C-alpha cells in the first residue's frame, strides 16, 4: 500500500499581480461597471486590452474606448458538471464573447440555464456583482438578452350550452339522442336544434333517435386526446338511424384497423350512476355485428 496524504502549497497572502497601465485601467473601469478596450495603431479595439498589438508587436495607442456592455457569443463550450473553482455552481457555458465595439473576444461564463439556449450569435450582457474589487470576476457571468417572455393568459368563465344543446344534453342524461325535424325540408338534425341551416326557419318537431347508426367515414388518430388517451383511437362520423346529418363520435370495442365505412354501430352508455347532461355519458359507439350498410 502506497501512503497518500493531502498537501497545500499556497503563498501566504497571495501573489502580487502588477497590472501595468493598460490592464489596470481595464480593471479600474470594470470596478465602476464599465467595459473598456484599447485602440491599436491599426485602429482595432482590443478587449480585454493589452499593452501591445498581438499581431504586430507595436505598442497600443493608449486611447481607451468604452465597449459593450452587450456582446455576441462567437464560440462556446458547455460545462455540464461545474467544479469548485468555476464561477457558477450550476451548468454553464464558457464562451468567447465579442463585446459590441470590440475587435477581439473575451472569455467569460454564460449562465444560459440550458445547453440548448447556447449558439454562436447569442446576444449576452454582463451580470455585475454588487461588491466589485477590480477583477474580471466583478462580472459574475454573462446572461442572454431578453428575447421572449411567457405570457400567462387564462380566462375563466361560465359556459351555458344554449337552449337547444341543453335540451339535447337533457336527453343524453337519460340515455336518448334528441333530434329535430325541419317542417320545411323534412331533414332530421341531431344534436337537436331550433332552426334549419338550409331553410332558415324555426324547427319545432322533436325526434327521438335510436342509439344505432352507420359509420359514414372516420379517422384513425395516432395523436392522443384527453378524451381518448389511448392511441390509436377512431373518431367517426356516425349517421344515426333516422338522422340526416352525422355526428362525430368515438368508436370502441374494435381494433382501429377493423373499422369500416358502412359499419353498423350502437351507442355504449356510461352506467346510469355516471350519466349526466354531458357527452361523457356516451362512452363510445361499438359494432352491432349487423352486416355493413352500402355507403
Amino acid at each position, binding site marked *: 500500500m502506497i501512503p497518500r496524504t493531502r498537501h497545500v502549497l499556497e503563498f501566504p497572502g497571495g501573489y502580487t499581480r502588477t497590472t501595468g497601465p493598460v490592464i489596470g485601467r481595464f480593471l479600474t473601469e470594470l470596478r465602476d461597471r464599465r467595459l473598456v478596450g484599447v485602440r491599436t495603431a491599426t485602429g482595432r479595439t482590443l478587449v480585454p486590452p493589452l499593452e501591445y498589438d498581438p499581431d504586430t508587436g507595436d505598442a497600443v495607442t493608449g486611447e481607451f474606448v468604452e465597449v459593450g456592455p452587450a456582446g455576441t457569443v462567437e464560440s462556446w463550450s458547455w460545462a455540464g458538471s461545474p467544479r469548485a473553482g468555476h464561477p457558477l455552481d450550476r451548468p454553464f457555458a464558457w464562451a468567447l464573447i465579442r463585446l459590441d465595439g470590440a475587435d477581439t473576444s473575451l472569455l467569460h461564463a454564460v449562465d444560459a440555464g440550458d445547453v440548448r439556449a447556447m449558439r454562436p450569435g447569442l446576444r449576452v450582457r454582463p451580470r455585475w456583482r454588487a461588491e466589485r474589487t477590480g477583477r474580471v470576476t466583478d462580472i459574475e457571468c454573462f446572461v442572454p438578452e431578453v428575447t421572449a417572455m411567457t405570457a400567462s393568459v387564462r380566462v375563466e368563465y361560465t359556459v351555458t350550452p344554449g337552449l337547444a344543446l341543453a335540451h339535447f344534453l337533457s336527453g343524453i342524461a337519460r340515455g336518448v339522442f334528441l333530434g329535430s325535424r325541419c317542417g320545411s325540408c323534412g331533414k332530421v*338534425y341531431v344534436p337537436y336544434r331550433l332552426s334549419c341551416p338550409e331553410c332558415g326557419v324555426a324547427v319545432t318537431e322533436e325526434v327521438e333517435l335510436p342509439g344505432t347508426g352507420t359509420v359514414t*367515414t372516420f*379517422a384513425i*388518430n*395516432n395523436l392522443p386526446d384527453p378524451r381518448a388517451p389511448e392511441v390509436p383511437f377512431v*373518431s367517426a362520423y356516425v349517421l344515426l338511424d333516422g338522422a*340526416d346529418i352525422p*355526428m*362525430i363520435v368515438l368508436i370502441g370495442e374494435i381494433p382501429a384497423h377493423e373499422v369500416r365505412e358502412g359499419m353498423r354501430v350502437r351507442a355504449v352508455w356510461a352506467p346510469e350512476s355516471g350519466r349526466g347532461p354531458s357527452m361523457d355519458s356516451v362512452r363510445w359507439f361499438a359494432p352491432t355485428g349487423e352486416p355493413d350498410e352500402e355507403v
Partner: protein
Amino acid sequence: MNRCAVIGVGQTRYTTRRRDVSLAGLVREAALRALEDAGLTWKDIDAVVIGKAPDLFEGVMMPEAYLADALGAAGKPMMRVHTAGSVGGSTALAGASLVQGGVHGRVLTVAFEKQSESNATWALSTHLPFSASLVVGAGGYFAPHIREYIRRSGAPDHVGTLVAVKDRRNALRNPYAHLRIPGIDRAMVEATPMLWEPIRYLETCPSSDGACAMVLAAEDRLTGSVPAWVLGAAMRSEPIFRAGRDTVNPRGGRDCAADVYRQAGITDPRREIDVAEVYVPFSWYEPMWLENLGFAPEGEGWKLTESGATALDGDIPWNASGGVLSSNPIGASGMIRFAEAALQVRGMAGEHQVDGARRALGHAYGGGAQFFAMWMVGSDRP
C-alpha cells in the same frame, strides 16, 4: 367596378420560429418589402387591411388594434378580416374591394401567423364544455373527408404521396419556403407515420411563422412596378352543419370558382389557366380541389395528379411555390397563394416561375372547408 392590380408583394422567410422578431416586426418586414416592390412608402397608402387566424393562436386579442401603427395606419382606415384558414385570401379580397369600389386608390393588405408563440392544434381543440364533437386539430377534422374521397374516387393510395413529394420539390426552388427537404421522394414520405390515418406526417403542412403583404392599386395609382391585374374575385361560405352538405366536394368551393371564372371569362380552367396556387394543407386536397375547382371531372382529380399534369413541368402546375404543404403561417397562407399567383403573372416568381404565365388562380379555404376565397390575376389589363 374599377380595375385593381397588385403592384407590390412582400414575404418573410417562412420558418418554424422567428424568435428574432416581435409580431409587429414580422408584419413590418413583409409590408416594407411589398412597399419596396411597389416603389412606395407608408405615406402613399390610403388604407390597411390585416388578416390572421384565431386570436387564440398567439393569445393576443385583437392584434389589429396594436398593429395599426406598426403598419403605418395611424390616421387611416384600418380593418381586420377573419375567416379561419381562408383569411389570407379574404383579406386580399377585402382590400381589393376597397379599390374596386373606388373607396381607396392604394391599399396595403397584410396577413400573418406566428405559430411558434403557442400551438395551433391546442387552439383548435379547446374542448369547450357541452361540445358534442370529438376532433383533434385540423388533421383530425379533415382525415375522414379525405378517406371518403379515396373511397368515392377509388384513387390509389400513393396519390397523396405524389403531391407531398411534388410540392416539397417545388419548395426547393422557393427561397421563402419553410420545409426544404433535399432528396425528398416517395419512400421518404411513405416511411413517415400516420398521424390521422389516412394522413401521414409528411403529407401534412408544417407549423410556420411568417407574414405576407401586398399593395393593391387602382388603375390611376399604379407605380413603375409590373402590375398583376385582378380579373375575378369571389368569396363563398356555407354552414358547417347542414344535412346533405358534401364535405368532399363542397358547394361553396364550386360556386366560388364558378363566380371567379365567369368574371374572368374562363370556361375551361385547365386549358385557360397557366398556374394555380391552391390551399392544399394535406396532400390529398390537391386531387379533391382539382375536382372542386373544375380542373377535372368529379372522381378524376387524382388522375391529373398521377399523370404529372400539376407538376412544375406539367400543363397546369399547382403550387409551384411549394404551397401550404411547404409553408403554413396559417393566417398568411391564403394571402401567400394570392401573392404567388400575382408573382407568376408578373414574371417575378424566380426559380419557380412558370414560363409565360399570363393567368393565375389564387385560392384559400378555411374552417371545416366552409369558407372559400379565390381570385384570378392576369398579366393583361382586363
